[in-house]
């Protein structure tokens, strides 16, 4: 086993430095069988580096070349390793650690089959060996502690077979008492701790060192993961932990030298882990919970928290609070059940007080403290536990009812305090602190406010009316004395009320009417919204925050306004008055939308003024951002939709007229510019039409019910359809809109890209035009819906314009513009196919015949398919590369074709043959490209096509199914080849479900041809993969063709694919 050619002396010299060359050579040598000897040669030297690399080599050989040793050598190695550990125990820490790692690696292989009772025996063996070699007891202790600290980490890192892992952990669990006895003896070395009579001497000695105590605490935490079975050991250990924490607290309170932050953090982490153990909490809640409440109820715990608050140390508070909070989160039900128990109520009260102290930790969260969000989850759990407790209580017993009432009262008192704490914590800090904070700090504060807002909801679920009373009283009082001196408090109160807005029932009729009376709205809220201040930036910031708070509060109670419609005439102006203030617009629009959404029916009486509001917004122009204008228009339209259909046209007239006038003005001004002008204003105005169209849609559920035949919904839609059809105003509007849209389509509108300086077609305008068509073309009636012929002609023209621009441009820049716009057009055509090709709906009376629709839409579809395939092909030299470069267009094209297949397969019959051929070619290419975006819709389309082609012959044959069968016969073999290649490893495994679905459709609908083609393809050598042998391929084919279950096909495909990828039989294949 000698290392030929190696000059050991020179190598040792080089490794003692160590040089890069030596380290490189060592890595090579470690792979050789003779490296076992090299390990011991290096360990025999006196140099620390060489000994380290010797231990490292030994560990590497045990891990990787274990089987190269015979049984005797393997057995003897254990003694060698223990000898090595003991020899290293008073040397450099790195060598000892590496020696222990080698020993741990050995143990991971041999325990328990060849080394039972590992931990006690190794501890004894190290001590024995140390005695034999005259080592000091403390040195042996260092070796033992180091091993105990390191072994759980090694076990976590190791890749161990699950059967071996289970046996190993079982062996370890049996020995846990011994391990924990040693480690707790070390941590009890802290001065002031109780004396442990039976502790090993080495543990007592090491316990005098703070560093070893910290390491022992961390080791305890590591060992806890293996799980302590039985409450005796668990409670004993917990008592030790809390006792030591008390001692540490005493040191911290006295400001002594032994108040080490690391030790506190380590002790707290171990205790935290124990108190988070849900298994123990489920089994021993009473004994553990009582112990902890009694111990945390002692003065030291409150005192140490008070000390942290006083010193303002987040780090210390975090260390102490973690375990307190964990206890509360894990033992919540126990806490609730004991809150009225005379034996523990005082302790529970102390505990809740500590939680409140943490919740109201001084400072502004995120800016100068980070602790006060920690207990919020506890308050949520406590509220839930109270609800469960009340639900489970015996309602027939007077005594039980009394206990429940006492419990609720006690919890209620705590939540009143919590409410005060949250309101104070949610208040914005001083202007100086806020302005001085960076973005992250401000974000943390706002994030905390959201969490605190959720906690306010928990408070509401406990206190209900009491909370409303407290907050309303406080808000009314504070608003009366509102000034820039107390704005933070007022804003925080408004935020608290806003947080519970959605939970307060409409029927609340006691406290909210005091806050939201017409008088209060007019005299308290409106003046704040309209106020202005001439102060500095900080005063303006304060006033704006308060105004936003007022408006957001009104929006949050939108459900409540529904039950109080008499107030809407005051509420809406209060909100909309914010529209004239740029900084308030966003909040005002958000609140306005919520109110419109919730109070649609109640606002119909005011629909006229709502429409006038929209006109005012239109006149205001840029003062209200375009996006916010659209939101207002959509909401106003939603309110108009709540009117009877016969009244809608008249209600809409002012705004539709104003919009049309503006659109024609814009068209004229853009057209007047030679070569085309800026179309942004025209686009904005068309977007408002689009917003109205969105708002005027019938709800999806009404359309769905009508499609399902619900008579009430059908008659509602029929009435609306008739009204929209007969309304002269709407007819004129639709005609004018169509004319304007046609003109806009032909406009030479160009824009210059600010960044690149390149001139391009205005994308937004075309997208906007298509969006108007999309949003007004619905299965149900729509006030703006264009007649089929008009809509089809418009979309056909749009497509022609787009293709003409692409073809005229010649350059790639304009090719890219086409790529960007093409998906929107494909989507629009898909929508038309869905709406107009579906089975005739009873409420649409003025539709052309299906044959005419098929012919018109089919012609457009054929053109679109042909042009799109040609457009994709222009993008690259090869078809595969082109598909790879344009996956989005491929996706939209096949989505459109799938939609056409599912709603009206006859559309494909009307397409030109060349277009169908191009589509089939493209689908074959898309199946070969490993792009998820392109492949999924392609596979979905082909599966749908193959399913429908199944009836392409025989009595049920239709022209459509005959065409689909023809496509299958011509291209099926190519599709099957691409599918099998994908399964065989060409595509990622995540795409297998799609390929399996396609294969399943082939086998199910065309069994004979699929069998024939599959046999031919799989007989090709190395297809679909060189790793799949003939037997595997035959088995795959037999299984796929003999099952009718898709789930089974997926499983068969998955298994065959792993064989093709050469990972079959490995855990990774699962």
């Amino acid at each position, binding site marked *: 086993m000698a290392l030929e050619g190696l000059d050991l002396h020179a190598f040792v010299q080089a490794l003692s430095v160590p040089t890069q060359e030596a380290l490189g050579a060592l890595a090579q040598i470690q792979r050789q069988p003779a490296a076992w000897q090299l390990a011991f040669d290096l360990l025999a030297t006196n140099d620390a580096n060489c000994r380290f690399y010797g231990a490292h080599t030994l560990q590497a050989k045990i891990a990787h070349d274990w089987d190269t040793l015979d049984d005797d050598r393997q057995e003897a190695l254990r003694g060698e390793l223990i000898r090595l550990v003991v020899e290293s125990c008073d040397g450099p820490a790195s060598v000892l650690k590496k020696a222990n790692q080698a020993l741990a690696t050995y143990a991971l292989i041999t325990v328990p089959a060849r080394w039972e009772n590992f931990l006690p025996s190794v501890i004894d063996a190290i001590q024995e060996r140390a005695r034999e070699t005259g080592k000091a007891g403390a040195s042996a202790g260092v070796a033992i502690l180091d091993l105990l600290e390191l072994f759980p980490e090694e076990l976590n890192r*190791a890749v161990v077979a699950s059967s071996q892992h289970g046996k190993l952990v079982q062996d370890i669990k049996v020995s846990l008492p011994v391990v924990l006895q040693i480690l707790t003896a070390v941590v009890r070395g802290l001065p002031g701790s109780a004396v442990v009579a039976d502790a090993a001497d080495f543990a007592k000695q090491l316990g005098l060192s703070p560093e070893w105590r910290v390491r022992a605490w961390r080791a305890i935490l590591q060992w806890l993961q293996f799980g302590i079975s039985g409450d005796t050991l668990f409670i004993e250990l917990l008592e030790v932990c809390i006792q030591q924490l008390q001692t540490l607290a005493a040191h911290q309170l006295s400001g002594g030298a032994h108040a080490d932050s690391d030790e506190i953090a380590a002790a707290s982490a171990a205790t935290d882990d124990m108190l988070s153990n849900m298994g123990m909490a489920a089994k021993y809640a009473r004994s553990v919970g009582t112990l902890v409440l009694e111990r945390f109820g002692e003065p030291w715990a409150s005192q140490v928290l008070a000390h942290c608050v006083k010193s303002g140390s987040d780090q210390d508070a975090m260390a102490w609070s973690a375990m307190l909070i964990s206890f509360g989160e894990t033992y919540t039900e126990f806490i609730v059940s004991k809150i009225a128990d005379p034996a523990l109520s005082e302790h529970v009260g102390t505990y809740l007080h500590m939680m409140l102290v943490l919740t109201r930790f001084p400072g502004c969260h995120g800016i100068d403290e980070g602790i006060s969000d920690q207990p919020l989850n506890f308050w949520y759990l406590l509220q839930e536990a109270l609800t469960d407790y009340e639900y489970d209580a015996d309602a027939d017993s007077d005594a039980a009812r009394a206990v429940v009432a006492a419990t609720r009262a006690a919890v209620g008192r705590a939540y009143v305090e919590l409410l005060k704490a949250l309101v104070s914590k949610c208040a914005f800090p001083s202007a100086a602190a806020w302005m001085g904070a960076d973005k992250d700090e401000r974000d943390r504060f706002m994030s905390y406010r*959201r969490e605190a807002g959720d906690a306010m909801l928990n408070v509401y679920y406990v206190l209900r009316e009491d909370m409303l009373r407290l907050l309303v009283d406080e808000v009314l009082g504070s608003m009366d004395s509102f000034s820039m001196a107390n704005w933070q408090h007022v804003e925080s109160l408004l935020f608290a009320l806003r947080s519970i807005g959605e939970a307060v029932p409409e029927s609340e009729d006691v406290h909210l009417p005091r806050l939201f009376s017409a008088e209060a709205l007019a005299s308290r809220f409106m003046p704040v919204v309209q106020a202005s201040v001439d102060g500095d930036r900080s005063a303006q910031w304060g006033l704006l925050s308060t105004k936003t708070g007022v408006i957001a509060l009104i929006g949050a109670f939108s459900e409540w306004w529904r039950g109080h419609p008499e107030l809407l005439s005051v509420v809406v102006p209060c909100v909309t008055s914010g529209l004239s203030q740029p900084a308030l617009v966003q909040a005002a629009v958000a609140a306005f939308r919520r109110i419109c959404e919730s109070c649609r029916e109640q606002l119909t009486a005011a629909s006229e003024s709502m429409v006038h509001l929209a006109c005012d917004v239109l006149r205001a122009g840029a003062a209200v951002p375009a996006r916010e204008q659209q939101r207002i228009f959509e909401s106003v339209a939603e309110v108009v939709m709540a009117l009877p259909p016969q009244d809608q046209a008249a209600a809409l007239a002012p705004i539709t007229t104003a919009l049309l006038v503006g659109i024609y003005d814009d068209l004229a001004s853009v057209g007047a510019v030679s070569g085309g002008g800026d179309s942004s204003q025209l686009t904005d105005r068309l977007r408002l039409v689009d917003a109205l169209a969105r708002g005027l849609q019938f709800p999806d559920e009404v359309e769905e019910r009508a499609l399902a035949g619900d008579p009430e919904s059908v008659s509602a839609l029929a009435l609306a359809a008739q009204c929209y059809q007969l309304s002269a105003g709407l007819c004129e509007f639709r005609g004018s809109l169509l004319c304007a849209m046609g003109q806009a389509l032909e406009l030479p509108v160009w824009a210059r890209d600010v960044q690149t300086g390149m001139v391009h077609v205005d994308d937004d305008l075309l997208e906007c035009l298509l969006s108007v068509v999309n949003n007004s073309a619905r299965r149900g009636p729509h006030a703006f819906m264009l007649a089929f012929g008009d809509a089809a002609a418009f979309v056909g023209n749009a497509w022609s314009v787009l293709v003409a621009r692409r073809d005229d441009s010649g350059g790639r820049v304009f090719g890219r513009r086409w790529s960007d716009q093409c998906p929107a057009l494909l989507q629009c055509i898909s929508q038309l196919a869905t709406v107009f090709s579906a089975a005739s709906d009873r409420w649409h009376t003025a539709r052309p015949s299906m044959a005419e629709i098929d012919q018109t839409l089919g012609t457009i579809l054929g053109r679109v398919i042909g042009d799109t395939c040609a457009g994709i092909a222009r993008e690259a030299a090869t078809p595969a590369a082109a598909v790879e470069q344009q996956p989005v267009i491929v996706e939209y094209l096949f989505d459109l074709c799938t939609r056409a297949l599912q709603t009206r397969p006859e559309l494909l019959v009307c397409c030109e043959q060349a277009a169908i051929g191009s589509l089939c070619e493209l689908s074959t290419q898309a199946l070969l490209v490993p792009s998820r975006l392109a492949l999924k819709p392609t596979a979905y389309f082909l599966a749908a096509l193959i399913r429908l082609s199944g009836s392409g012959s025989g009595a049920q044959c239709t022209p459509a199914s005959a065409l689909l069968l023809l496509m299958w016969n011509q291209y099926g073999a190519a599709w099957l080849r691409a599918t099998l290649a994908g399964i065989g490893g060409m595509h990622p*495994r995540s795409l297998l479900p799609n390929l399996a679905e396609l294969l399943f459709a082939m086998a199910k609908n065309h069994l004979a041809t699929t069998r024939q083609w599959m046999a031919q393809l799989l007989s090709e050598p190395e297809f679909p993969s060189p790793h799949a042998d003939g037997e595997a391929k035959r088995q795959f084919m037999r299984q796929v063709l003999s099952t009718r279950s898709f789930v089974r096909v997926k499983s068969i495909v998955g298994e065959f694919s792993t064989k093709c990828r050469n990972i079959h039989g*490995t855990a*990774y294949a699962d």
Partner: protein
Amino acid sequence: MPSYFELYRKSTLGIALTDSLDDLIQAGHITPQLAIQVLEQFDKSIALALSTKVKTKAVIKGNLRIYRFCDDVWTFTIKDPTFKFEHETATADKIKIVACNAKRTGE
């Protein structure tokens, strides 16, 4: 060794990682065993990141159609859900929420 939930392997990130590992295995750059270790590390890291790094909250409202609690896993099927984020709203036809007990993670 602590085990973590494997459900995030079906996320976009997890699928992309698995696909990349497949490629590396097929090219012979890594062994399946190493790929498993990578995925286990992914399970751990994503669980940790989601529990400690993500502060975003959303309110989900919709019609609860199906719910069940089996093997410590809650499953909810919600029709027409609306997700309200801090600054935006999103909708869907149907979603399935699979919720596992985070406290078990790493135990």
